[in-house]
């Protein structure tokens, strides 16, 4: 026992010594992050994520921050220019394609000519075959990509590969510098779809890799490429020295650190050891940040997202809003959009009363609301009550909302507002994942009102109006139409609008649909379009926010 005691005493002494030593070395350690930040041209741009991305693999990734990075690493046939929304950043343009494609008369065949000069980070040249490889890989059943939906409904042969009936997508052919894509039906939103990351050119070695866990690093043909990734820890993106294209590329390395809490990320941006809080900081800090740094001046910026927060009004038989447009209108008058938005924190977005978000389908300004009478400043309880009179059914409604974030408080706002028109709302709070899954199952979707939000996969009104409100796509499960809105008249108009070529006519058709649906039988209570609140360090320069890709990491530079 004496020996054990001596051992304990010696261990204790070593422990105390180590603590003292650590304290002594603490000061230089605190300077450690400064090693990461290089002020010189080139250098390293340090960004931080609270939660890791799902994948870095181009055919698997589907998270917003990941697509933001992919904008810096990928080269695509069509892409969005490195510009702000006001300068046309939301307009899809040829990137590796030499020009806009030649479209057959029936609108079902698109022929692209691939420009020479683009190279992968491993030095190999980009050809039309590399784009076919991407579509083939996206369709592989073994890969089981959750982004295959972006092409499987329109590209000939893609579903066959997904079903294991073929190994290559028959509707896509690459010959020389030509790439032809055959569609099952005319889909003018193809160009916007091709501007999403899954359709970027990939190398032959990646094309042959069907590991469902994806790859962490690979050669890519954009201005940057993924050089290293340790899941849940960090991602390192290096400059593609073989890139000779026109896109900007300033810093040598983009270092993405993963896992710190939003509070710590805020502290690191203030200290300057992190340049950009990629998935934001603690929402309650934004008011102080705006006060300290100003808004849209030096370090704090807000930009609209292609997104909408809405209340889905369940139109299914047996639910309160079935064949009840009067009540749907009344609820649109009754809900206090200002109070609802306020629960998200300072400068969290703008109020709206329309389906399409600003930046999409010709809607240009964030403040461009429909003159449909639905108030965005304050609720009009009096009018709501007069419209609702006699249409409140049982007078009882069930509302589903997430049990975290602003969801519970927003549900209370709705509960209070609807009480004013004689509807008693029972709130059911669920974990967001559970709410999302259950609301998509028609038999389980027993709500009358569902807290909901939707962000665009690509910049085309089809991805909002058809995907969310086309009643012909409603099935027993996997429904995005959580209002279970099924109007024969509007379904036909949606199908018609989907066939119009991109441009003013298409935008006008979708805007008219937006207006008509909201006026005649509102499927939702559109409430707000979220804003991206972007906090960057004093070292962050060359700030460009692309309305689709978000912060342009390729264009970013260090001051």
């Amino acid at each position, binding site marked *: 026992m004496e020996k054990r005691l001596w051992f304990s005493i010696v261990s204790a002494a070593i422990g105390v010594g180590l603590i003292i030593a*650590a304290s002594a070395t603490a000061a230089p350690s605190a300077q450690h992050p400064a090693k990461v930040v290089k002020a010189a041209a080139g250098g390293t741009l340090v960004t931080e994520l609270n939660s890791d991305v799902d994948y870095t693999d181009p055919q698997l990734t589907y998270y917003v921050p990941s697509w933001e990075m992919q904008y810096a690493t990928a080269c695509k046939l069509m892409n969005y220019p490195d510009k702000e929304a006001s300068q046309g950043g939301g307009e899809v343009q040829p990137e590796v394609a030499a020009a806009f494609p030649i479209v057959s008369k029936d609108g079902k065949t698109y022929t692209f000519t691939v420009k020479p000069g683009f190279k992968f980070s491993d030095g190999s040249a980009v050809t039309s075959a590399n784009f076919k490889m991407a579509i083939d890989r996206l369709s592989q059943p073994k890969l089981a990509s959750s982004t295959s939906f972006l092409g499987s409904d329109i590209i000939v042969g893609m579903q066959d590969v997904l079903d294991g009936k073929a190994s290559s997508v028959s509707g896509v052919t690459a010959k020389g510098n030509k790439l032809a894509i055959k569609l099952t039906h005319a889909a003018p939103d193809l160009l916007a779809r091709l501007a999403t990351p899954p359709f970027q050119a990939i190398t032959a070695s990646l094309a042959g890799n069907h590991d469902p866990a994806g790859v962490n690093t690979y050669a890519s043909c954009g201005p940057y490429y993924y050089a290293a990734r340790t899941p849940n820890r*960090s991602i390192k993106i290096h400059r593609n020295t073989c890139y000779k294209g026109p896109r900007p590329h300033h810093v040598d390395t983009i270092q993405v650190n993963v896992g710190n809490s939003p509070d710590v990320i805020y502290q690191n941006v203030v200290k300057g050891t992190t340049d950009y809080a990629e998935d934001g900081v603690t929402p309650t800090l934004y008011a102080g940040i705006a006060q300290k740094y100003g808004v849209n001046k030096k370090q704090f910026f807000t930009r609209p997202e292609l997104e909408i927060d809405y209340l889905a009004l369940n139109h299914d038989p047996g639910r309160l809003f079935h064949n009840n447009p009067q009540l749907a209108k009344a609820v649109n008058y009754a809900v206090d959009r200002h109070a609802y938005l306020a629960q998200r924190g300072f400068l969290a977005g703008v109020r709206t009363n329309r389906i399409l978000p600003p930046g999409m389908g010709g809607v240009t300004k964030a403040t461009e609301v429909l003159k449909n009478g639905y108030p965005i400043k304050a609720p009009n309880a009096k009018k709501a009550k007069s419209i609702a009179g006699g249409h409140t059914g049982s007078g009882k409604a069930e509302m589903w909302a997430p049990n975290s974030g602003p969801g519970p408080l927003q549900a209370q706002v709705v509960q209070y507002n609807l009480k004013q028109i004689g509807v008693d709302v029972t709130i059911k709070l669920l974990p967001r994942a559970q709410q999302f899954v*259950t609301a998509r199952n028609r038999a389980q979707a027993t709500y009358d009102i569902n807290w909901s939000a939707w962000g665009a996969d690509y910049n085309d009104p089809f991805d909002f109006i058809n995907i969310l409100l086309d009643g012909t796509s409603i099935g027993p499960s*996997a429904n995005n139409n959580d209002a279970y809105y099924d109007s024969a008249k509007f379904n036909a108009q949606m199908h018609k609008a989907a066939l119009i070529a991109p441009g003013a006519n298409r935008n006008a058709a979708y805007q008219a649909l937006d207006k008509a649906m909201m006026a005649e039988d509102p499927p939702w209570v559109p409430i707000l379009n979220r804003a991206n609140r972007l906090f960057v360090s004093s070292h962050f320069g060359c700030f460009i926010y692309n309305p689709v890709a978000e912060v342009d990491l390729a264009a970013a530079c260090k001051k």
Partner: protein
Amino acid sequence: MGRYVVRRLLWAVVLFVAVTMITYVIFFVIPADPAVLAAGRSARPADVARVRHYLGLDHSVPYQYGLFLKRLIVDQSLGRSFVNRRAVNSMVGQAAPVTASLVFGGAILWMLLAIPIGVLSALRPRSLLDRAAMVFVLIGISMPVVVIGLILQYVFGFKWNVLPNAGYCDVINPPLGATCGGPAEWFTHMILPWVTFAILFTAIYVRMIRSNVMDTLGEDYVRTAWAKGAPGARVMTRHVLRYALLPVVTMLGMDIAIALGGAIFTEYIFGLPGLGRLAVQSLMSFDLPTIEGVVVFATLCIIILNLVVDVLYAFIDPRIRLE
């Protein structure tokens, strides 16, 4: 001893099966289809069906559980994550050393603090030191770990900027893309998490040691030792501490075992990619294989450390005979 260990191991198997089975059942009682989540928000029913087949969710729950056990026993595999499809073995394997760093470092710290303070408080009851120690105990027990962590982080990591405010550096072989690594950086990055993690336990252990030492000091055999003129240090080490610290060994084993399952709050505050954070992430995303992976690991830690403690207990106190 051998028969005792075998008997405990058999019980451990029963416990292990029960815990993993209960986790499975709870998971499937919650009406959230992981196939829909994994298929992505825009997936059509056919896509969801394909993903369900890929994940093996198109089988019955008992079949899936049987498959899980078979994979675990035959292939030593915990399967793949539903969310990112990474091998759960690798995810748990990467997270476990981080949690172990936190827990073992924290345990050393709390024992280094708790033993001297507890003993001195017991030797001088109602002295200034004793009262100060009790104030510390009260604060340590009543203040949530989250608050302590945030205060330490803000003051030392941000305001005074004398210690890293968060993050983890590997002691050896930092992964690709890491911005730090090596023993010195590992140590400095762990100081605040260790202190945060240790405060609560230090407070509990100080109280426990003080009480045990005071009780033991009142025992007849200790009085006899004093009366025989034995030196103070000898009485304290051979007669008092030896028995006063016996329950501490048991507690230490249990506390370390439980904490190895994930020190959630401390890991979250300081951005440590350990098991606690992994557990929270997988719960939020209904990622059953990862949840099971963390449960299996935590269960094994508890079973093994309990066994070690029992054996150690008998070794320290010859009065205890396991058989």
